[in-house]
């Protein structure tokens, strides 16, 4: 097939081979345009875990995603000053982790949780070192989320045709360095180990309802990859497309979603 395609391409005139200038239009919307300059951009890796934990070879079932917080959101979570022993409640980050990032996607595309489906979202940073405005914190936390059959996140391009119950609970531990003057994270090294159960339509758990173990690692990134569930952040600093992405032509916009 490739040979045939190459032969046909060779038969085209040069004009036919080149991009039509009228078609050279930048996309009207890209989710990565919402990248939080000066805020928090996190790379998140998920991986299936064996009950043997570190004794086992790493599973080859893994996935990656990103998580964003704006500069203003981070600034609102951090104190002006801190001393050793101070405990920082990083609630917005905990909520975003529980709803949108600590999800069962190690084997494929999955769904996020609605706020009402999160039973527990806790992330605390305990200050262990202060060096001027630079502060080192030890992170610890827990999340627990459970989704029933009802989709609670409204009409979106993630709205599933049907949904099956699933859930996940995690324990988190890690370290971060914060710049309280710049109101930002300088580093992040966060591990979450947890148990997932159930399935979503495309997450590869059809015959593996669990419960089974999953792990996550989170660190800072400069990659401008948009979070999977960017459309569900519900924040004004992530631009949304003027036309919902699942109805991107007048013909399609007349179609009822099935």
């Amino acid at each position, binding site marked *: 097939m*490739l040979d045939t*395609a*190459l032969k046909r*391409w060779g038969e085209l005139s*040069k004009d036919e*081979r*080149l*991009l039509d200038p009228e078609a*050279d*239009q*930048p*996309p009207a919307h*890209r*989710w*990565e345009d919402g990248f939080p300059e000066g805020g928090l951009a996190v790379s998140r890796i998920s*991986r299936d*875990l064996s*009950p043997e934990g*570190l004794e086992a070879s*790493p599973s080859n079932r*893994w996935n*990656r*995603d990103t998580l964003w917080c704006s500069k203003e959101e981070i600034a609102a979570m951090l104190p002006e000053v801190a001393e050793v022993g101070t405990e920082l409640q990083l609630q917005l980050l905990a909520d975003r982790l529980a709803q949108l990032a600590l999800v069962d*996607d190690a084997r*494929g*595309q999955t769904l996020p949780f609605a706020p009402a489906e999160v*039973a527990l979202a806790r992330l605390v940073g305990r200050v262990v070192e202060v060096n001027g405005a630079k502060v080192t914190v*030890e992170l610890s936390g827990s999340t*627990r989320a*459970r989704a029933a059959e009802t989709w609670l996140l409204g009409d979106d*391009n*993630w709205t599933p045709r049907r949904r099956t119950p699933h*859930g996940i*609970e995690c*324990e*988190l*531990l*890690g*370290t971060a360095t914060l710049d309280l003057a710049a109101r930002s994270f300088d580093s992040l*090294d966060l*591990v979450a*180990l*947890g*148990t*997932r*159960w*159930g399935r979503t339509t*495309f997450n590869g758990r059809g015959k593996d*309802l*669990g*419960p*089974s*173990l999953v*792990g996550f*690692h989170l660190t800072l990134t400069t990659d401008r990859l*948009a*979070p*999977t*569930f960017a459309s569900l952040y519900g924040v004004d600093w992530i631009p949304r497309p003027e036309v919902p*992405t699942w109805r991107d032509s007048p013909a399609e916009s007349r179609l009822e979603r099935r």
Partner: protein
Amino acid sequence: MLTITLLVAALQQGAPVDSPRAQVTEGAAAASPEAPELRRIDLAEWRVHLLPGEVDMRFARIPWEPTFLDGVRRASEQERPLLLWLMNGHPLGCT
């Protein structure tokens, strides 16, 4: 009997009702594996265990363009054909 009842009650109190340990899947109570204890001393090992290795990241050696249009532009500049390989799934879906 009282002892057994109390024991069952105590075990049930160990897991919240929305916890995987309290779930029943496909008609049978599934044994939930205990997640390994997460200790601060093991964090570096967990990082290595969880992060993708060199083999995992082979796909990243390809100089991907962020959009199809960027690829078409580059193909035009180089006067080379472009192979479009599509797969279903949400564009951000980490499929």
